[in-house]
């Protein structure tokens, strides 16, 4: 199954009732999957909107009624959705947003890239807000994380971004779908269903009174702190005895893993630290790796965006090198292995304990 289709199937199984999207490569198989499989389900909606902007605002309207809702796009389309994402955050509405990202800036190209890291993790829209960002590195994880994204969104009343890329979206791999949600999910609290037997409700972000808006921001911030405490995930791969640790996420981590296995076979003690939640970032876990390892290689398919978080976590406690390929160019495992080998020897790690 393609990564894009796997996201669609996982979303349907997670009880996604509405999908709103707009065509853009390399994620088209996802709306096509939803058009074929979601639209025919009872009470479910697939709608091809007139724009990414309209799609994200339809997501907002549907989410306000308390159902599970998703949109997907690729980098330039995600830029258009930023207005709506900011409103979703301000209105405390859950939603799942899938970014099968591609090369930029501008129209860029349709190849795999990781240059939307800043946009995803820093909040690409206006205002003080965060979104949970999950970074899968296989088709299986695309499916699993889509499901998890719906749960997290509902738990924290927050939009969750699944940040894939063109390669993951197009890749074909076997997938196991773990769970199927009940046919009808319970409607969330706070949802708008009409003021029957209760006072009318308002879903909004607008708060003209500054102290009230300040309190609303504090309330969001406290929720973000809770998410930072509860929901951080990462993977340590062969880091226990590693003299050099590669830090990479998503498809880059997958490429790095291949390189690390080969480097291990060549006798080099190399490991991988893979952040799975890009926000909240697994800083503490990375710090504990840095207590034993003093050499890091940050590898990304961009010119160095996540490296800011790596530096914030490790500071000057270790040497941090960077290798990146921007613009939709994808490094091969042997290319990364060459970089690893060079760093390993330059720093005299063969003889270091």
């Amino acid at each position, binding site marked *: 199954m393609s990564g894009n289709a796997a996201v669609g199937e996982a979303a349907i199984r997670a009880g996604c009732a509405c999908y709103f999207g707009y065509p853009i490569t390399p994620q088209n198989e996802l709306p096509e999957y939803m058009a074929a499989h979601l639209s025919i389900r009872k009470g479910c909606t697939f709608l091809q909107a007139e724009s990414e902007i309209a799609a994200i605002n339809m997501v907002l309207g549907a989410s306000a009624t308390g159902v599970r809702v998703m949109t997907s796009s690729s980098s330039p389309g995600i830029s258009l959705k930023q207005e709506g994402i900011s409103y979703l955050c301000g209105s405390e509405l859950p939603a799942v947003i899938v970014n099968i990202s591609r090369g930029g800036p501008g129209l860029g190209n349709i190849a795999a890239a990781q240059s939307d890291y800043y946009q995803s993790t820093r909040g690409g829209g206006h205002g003080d807000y965060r979104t949970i960002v999950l970074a899968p590195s296989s088709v299986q994880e695309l499916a699993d994380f889509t499901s998890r994204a719906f749960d997290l969104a509902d738990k924290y009343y927050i939009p969750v971004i699944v940040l894939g890329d063109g390669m993951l979206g197009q890749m074909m791999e076997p997938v196991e779908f773990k769970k199927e949600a009940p046919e009808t999910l319970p409607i969330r609290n706070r949802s708008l*269903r009409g003021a029957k037997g209760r006072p009318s409700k308002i*879903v909004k972000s607008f708060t003209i009174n500054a102290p009230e808006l300040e309190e609303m921001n504090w309330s969001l911030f406290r929720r973000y702190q809770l998410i930072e405490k509860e929901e951080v995930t990462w993977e340590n791969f062969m880091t226990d005895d590693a003299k050099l640790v590669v830090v990479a996420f998503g498809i880059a981590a997958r490429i790095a893993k291949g390189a690390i296995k080969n480097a291990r076979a060549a006798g080099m003690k190399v490991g991988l630290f893979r952040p799975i939640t890009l926000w909240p970032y697994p800083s503490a876990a990375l710090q504990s790796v840095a207590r034993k390892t003093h050499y890091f290689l940050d590898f990304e398919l961009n010119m160095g965006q996540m490296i800011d978080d790596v530096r914030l976590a490790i500071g000057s406690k270790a040497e941090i090198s960077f290798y990146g390929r921007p613009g939709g160019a994808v490094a091969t495992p042997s290319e990364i292995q060459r970089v690893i080998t060079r760093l390993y020897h330059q720093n005299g790690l063969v003889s270091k304990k």
Partner: protein
Amino acid sequence: MKVVYQRPKSLKKVAFHYCAGCGHSIVHRLICEVIDEMGIQEKTIGVPPAGCSVIAYNYFDVDMVESAHGRGMAVATGVKRALPEAIVFSYQGDGDLAAIGTAETVHAANRGEKITAFFINNAVYGMTGGQMAPTTLPKMVTTTSPYGRNESLDGYPIPISDMLALTKGAVYIERTAVNSPAHIIQTKKAIRKAFQTQIDGKGFAMVEILAPCPTNWKMDTLPSWKWVDEVLAKEYPLRLIKDTTGGKNAD
């Protein structure tokens, strides 16, 4: 004693913040009267805009969800698709519906979205201080057309309702005003018809309402009400623009 006039049940007991002579408060009241009369308060979900009526949810006693400027019909679409049994309306001004939200407006109409749109046309951006709107009249002075709207540079008043009527999905579109008792009565009839169109599942319905904005027109209230008839309605004639519902007219 017979009660002949009272606050509609779905209009909250809150003083309006609108300027004297403004059309919003009248339209709010009319919508609430119709909601009461049709008995749909418990299943109505409204979508207020950005602008002077941004806090319309302080007045309408129905569930409401905010929309970003121009996105009202997209938000309303999301609500209606997720909850088809709800009666969904958007409430939007001219800049919102006919400039920044043109795409959302045209496509909601073209899809025949089963929502009801209330379009308040006062030919200016009110909340932001009276800037030129897409509906501003030729030569009309606003804060961003201080020498009058120059058609050769700024284009012409946009006939958005007539444009929407070209789409098959739009089945009922009427233009009314709230500057006289007769026009207010006609507006209420149109509001009812627009809701009924949604209830009958016929398609997209919209009422364009010419509303005075004395503050930004820099007029006293009475002259502003006259100006609606004598000037604004010349550009935007009050009429039934389209009705393919097969039902009876709002009259």
